[in-house]
């Protein structure tokens, strides 16, 4: 076990490739007859929470699972389109556990833990086996065997997919496993139920306070441990590709109870989304990264041509070849249109900042299938991307077979999350965090097709093996809801709901959410700088104060009240946003999704002179910032306290990330 900085990451000693096996061998076990004496709370029913709840129930634990949606089948994992990575090497193209590990670590700009990422790559193959056995209809070849495709940031074909609906099919597989356990009685499911607080007893996570979203009833649930699998916080930006209900509440409530929030400034801006079209817009829609396998991204070479295109005086299809800048192919010849997401997004922003953007707003570039249709035929393209083309046409009103798609980056995923150790346990004993809600595997940028992999790895294979390390030391059922800690937590929750209802101001919840979202997108979005972040840190408290004085929540709290639900979530975003900006300000380097304008390569740098990288690329500062920033929440308005976990690279030498 090693201690890094002030946080114990509990990474097992020994060679990288043997750490997970050794850890499993050294982990505690709970005998089958005793497992049923332990109860476990799982919050969230997406790929991470659903797979954990189902698997822990199969093992014999008593599980309670909570989700805010009307059914666990609706968790936002369902919207993932492209695929799931696994180091199967079915294509015989040189893939291996090591390569998947290395690509993921490099893709994350060397800001994740070697041991966690290696474990992820190691169990990736088991995930595919498990999902196929559940009946997940992955794409197949005529021989009946599984098909693969390549995906952003990788030079091998290791992505398994199910048309453009991989997340849906994996989640349905996971949901069905959960349904099987619900029917068997191992899992009690609480849909339309939202966690409003975490209950600590003697410093250990032993329960939660929830609100029944239909009746408004507030109740207590005690267990021997708590697992949060509540997704990411992308909706802090208001506009994102997340579902409308996605929120940071459970994670932030845990943070308020002492759990550290790690790397909140690492947010992923996905390069291929449908551009914003107006201020009425409620969310953004992703177009799968898989489109970049056949689509070519370009912007006009000159601002004059771009201006004509914006005013619709010219059609994209009529722009001559020599007037098109296929900027990813130009800047990154070996990866081309498959460059990683952070790099592709920033390149699109650069083109638009140059005045070469298209779409009415000037914030758009083209994703063009003309050449692929000429090469492969319309039918082949339709077979690969038909549902995505249809989706684009429904939203934009344009036909992508004859006109290039217009795309622009949008907030999509958050690499930051609650800090966890190798056992996926937070700094609060008993509180475990899985999937997007934790911070552990993707560093500063996530590669395509690895979110599904991580969610399922955590739920199916990691937590079932690591949870006994905590549980074996606990007397099962020792804590009940009569403990005074539950009284305190429930009273706090009731007081907060009453306070929200009592404001009775003039502005809607959404108006505050939009205001906050625009501010953080502007100051803590695709590019950040110290002055902007300081400005945001100054402005967020003012929005928050007005919220608590002037928000209007009609109706009452003892009924289905969606304005109240939104208000609780926005109230937490209004605190969390400040922590995110503090993290971005503290990290004086550029890495992955965190691009600080002050830290980029220039002509003066050796790496540029030698031709290894380009001016304007993100510049890491490994000597000072190769650490995980784990923040301890303070009172609203006060700066959170920073704890550092030093990242140690024993097997890989962090290099300047180049995709040239």
């Amino acid at each position, binding site marked *: 076990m090693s201690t890094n900085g002030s946080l114990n990451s509990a990474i097992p000693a020994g060679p990288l490739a043997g750490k997970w096996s050794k850890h499993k061998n050294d982990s505690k076990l709970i005998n089958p007859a005793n497992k049923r004496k332990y109860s476990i709370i799982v919050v969230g029913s997406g790929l991470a929470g659903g797979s954990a709840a189902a698997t822990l129930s199969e093992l014999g634990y008593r599980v309670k699972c909570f989700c805010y949606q009307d059914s666990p089948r609706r968790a936002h994992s369902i919207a993932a389109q492209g695929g799931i990575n696994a180091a199967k090497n079915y294509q015989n193209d040189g893939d291996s556990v090591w390569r998947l590990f290395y690509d993921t670590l490099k893709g994350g700009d060397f800001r994740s833990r070697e041991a966690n990422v290696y474990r992820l790559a190691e169990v990736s193959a088991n995930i595919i086996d498990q999902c196929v056995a559940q*009946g997940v209809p992955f794409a197949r070849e005529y021989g009946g065997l599984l098909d693969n495709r390549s995906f952003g940031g990788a030079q091998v074909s290791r992505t398994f997919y199910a048309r453009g609906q991989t*997340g849906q099919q994996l989640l349905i597989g996971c949901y069905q496993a959960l349904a099987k356990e619900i029917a068997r009685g191992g899992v009690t499911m609480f849909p339309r139920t939202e966690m409003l607080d975490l209950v600590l007893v003697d410093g250990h996570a032993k329960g939660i306070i929830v609100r029944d979203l239909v009746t408004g009833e507030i109740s207590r649930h005690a267990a021997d441990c708590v697992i949060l699998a509540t997704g990411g916080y992308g909706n802090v930006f208001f506009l994102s590709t997340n579902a409308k209900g996605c929120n940071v509440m459970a994670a932030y409530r845990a943070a308020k109870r002492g759990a550290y929030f790690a790397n909140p400034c690492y947010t992923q801006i996905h390069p291929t989304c449908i551009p914003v079209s107006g201020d009425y817009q409620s969310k953004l829609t992703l177009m799968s990264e898989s489109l970049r396998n056949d689509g070519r991204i370009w912007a006009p070479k000159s601002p004059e041509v771009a201006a004509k295109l914006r005013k619709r005086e010219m059609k994209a299809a009529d722009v001559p070849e020599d007037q098109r800048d296929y900027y990813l192919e130009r800047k990154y010849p070996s990866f081309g249109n498959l460059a990683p997401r952070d790099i592709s997004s920033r390149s699109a922003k650069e083109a638009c900042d140059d005045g070469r953007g298209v779409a009415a707003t000037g914030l758009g570039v083209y994703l063009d299938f003309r050449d692929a249709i000429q090469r492969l035929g319309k039918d082949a393209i339709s077979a690969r991307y038909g549902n995505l083309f249809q989706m684009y046409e429904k939203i934009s009103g344009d036909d992508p077979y004859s006109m290039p798609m217009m795309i622009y980056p949008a907030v999509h995923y958050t690499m930051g999350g609650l800090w966890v150790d190798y056992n996926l346990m937070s700094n609060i004993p008993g509180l475990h965090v899985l999937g997007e809600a934790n911070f552990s595997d993707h560093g500063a940028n996530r590669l395509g097709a690895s979110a599904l992999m991580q969610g399922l790895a955590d739920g199916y294979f990691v937590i079932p093996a690591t949870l006994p390390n905590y549980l074996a030391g606990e007397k099962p059922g020792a804590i009940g809801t009569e403990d005074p800690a539950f009284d305190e937590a429930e009273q706090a929750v009731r007081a907060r709901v009453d306070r929200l209802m009592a404001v009775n101001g003039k502005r809607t919840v959404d108006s505050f959410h939009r205001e906050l979202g625009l501010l953080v997108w502007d100051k803590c979005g695709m590019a950040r700088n110290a002055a902007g972040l300081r400005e945001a840190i100054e402005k967020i408290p003012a929005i928050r104060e007005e919220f608590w004085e002037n928000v209007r929540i009609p109706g009452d709290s003892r009924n289905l009240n*969606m304005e109240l639900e939104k208000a609780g979530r926005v109230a937490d975003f209004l605190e969390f946003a400040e922590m995110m900006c503090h993290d971005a300000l503290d990290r004086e380097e550029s890495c992955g999704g965190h691009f600080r304008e002050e830290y980029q390569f220039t002509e003066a740098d050796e790496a540029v002179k030698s031709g290894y990288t380009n001016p304007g690329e993100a510049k890491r500062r490994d000597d000072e910032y190769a650490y995980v920033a784990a923040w301890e929440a303070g009172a609203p308005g006060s700066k959170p306290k920073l704890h550092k976990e030093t990242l140690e690279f024993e097997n890989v030498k962090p290099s300047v990330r180049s995709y040239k």
Partner: protein
Amino acid sequence: MNFTLKVWRQRSPNAKGQIETYEAQDIPADASFLEMLDIVNERIVEGGGEPIHFDHDCREGICGMCSLTINGIPHGKDSGITTCQLHMRKFSDGDTIFIEPFRARAFPILRDLVVDRSAFDRIIAAGGFISVRTGSAVEANSLPVPKDDADASFDAAACIGCGACVAACKNASAMLFVGAKAAHLNLLPQGKPEKDRRALAMVRQMDAEGFGNCTNQYECEAVCPKSISATVIAKLNRDYTVASVKEAVC
């Protein structure tokens, strides 16, 4: 664009509901149907009223949460989409639009346009799964599946569980939903061992939930946002019949 909305309002599950009228003015043509309702709700709240409650989440046509009957048609008249994918440019300026919940005895109304579809979860729990314990799966490529079978299974697996099929059916039958799940799993070699059990258990649960019988009207297929074919119903009938006979004989 301007619209007149006629919306079903109902405060709670047992309250009496009625249609109320709202004017939706200055709506951008590029707004989605749900964004139009967002705008209307903002104005209702600012005016001191209670917003129209409706279910929604992903807003990209995949989670299955949105569930409005628009001018009498679940998810509206455009084919192959969910309510959240419907855009106002598909309507004419000045239209009067009726908005109601997905109506069925097995889908009780919770509030306004929000209904309880947990009956679907109980049907899946009855048999809509393959019993495989985590960790006991065989190597994925050890079980080749002919591409045609895999594709047919996928077509059925595309179901998002929204319930439009039930809302469109005059009998409130759930046969398209149940047929889609049965076809998804029964067509695959992995699903074969539990095929009979699955068909019997799911159909019996469906009946117990109060869904009606199928009388081959195909309204379900017409409104399905994922264009699932009603042939899955025929296949379910066949699987159920075979399983019933086996059960009677054994």
